[in-house]
């Protein structure tokens, strides 16, 4: 099995700045999903990007996928204090399981 790995482990930015988080994985995937988790809460699904897609947008979120480099990035533009959370990528190999990394802890300073 393989697991997504997020980078950096922690990120601290000022409100209004952009935040970029990266995810790397090791084997072929069908899709990759990004999640947000506020402290002590469940995971909120953000975006699913399929292996044949290169970029997707949702509001202030932009996700890219480079299957040749086995990597994905999540960009949050014009960050807000409410974006403070942990962000996880999860890879789907089609084996009825998602493989999660340990996450990036984002802190947005007002």
């Amino acid at each position: 099995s393989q697991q997504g790995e997020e980078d950096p482990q922690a990120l601290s930015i000022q409100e209004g700045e952009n935040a970029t988080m990266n995810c790397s994985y090791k084997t072929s995937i069908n899709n990759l999903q990004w999640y947000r988790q506020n402290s002590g809460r469940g995971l909120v699904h953000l975006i699913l990007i399929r292996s044949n897609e290169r970029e997707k947008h949702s509001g202030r979120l932009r996700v890219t996928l480079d299957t040749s480099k086995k990597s994905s990035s999540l960009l949050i533009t014009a960050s807000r204090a409410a974006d403070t959370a942990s962000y996880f990528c999860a890879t789907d190999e089609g084996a009825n399981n998602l493989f999660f990394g340990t996450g990036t802890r984002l802190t947005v300073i007002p």
Partner: protein
Amino acid sequence: SQTIHQWPATLVQPVGSPLSLECTVEGTSNPNLYWYRQAAGRGLQLLFYSVGIGQISSEVPQNLSASRPQDRQFILSSKKLLLSDSGFYLCAWRESILGEQYFGPGTRLTVT
């Protein structure tokens, strides 16, 4: 729209006591259901998944078991809790293997 419920939200149990966590999904039929555990500051570990009533697959040998008595109900159980069972337990569902997966609010279990 679909909704997923988990209860209880928090639970403190002594070592050796039994456990029953429940998860239900509304607004969908025949979902794939999952139980995950998240240790503090860590990623998620898949414990069990189910593709249908009575069908349970275990990913990690452990002190826990799962059951799916109804289409949209998934239960996580233990006969005797261990200290190492403490953690944040999350139930999740999705309609198809390659679709979006959605999580419940989680149960914080502390075994004392």
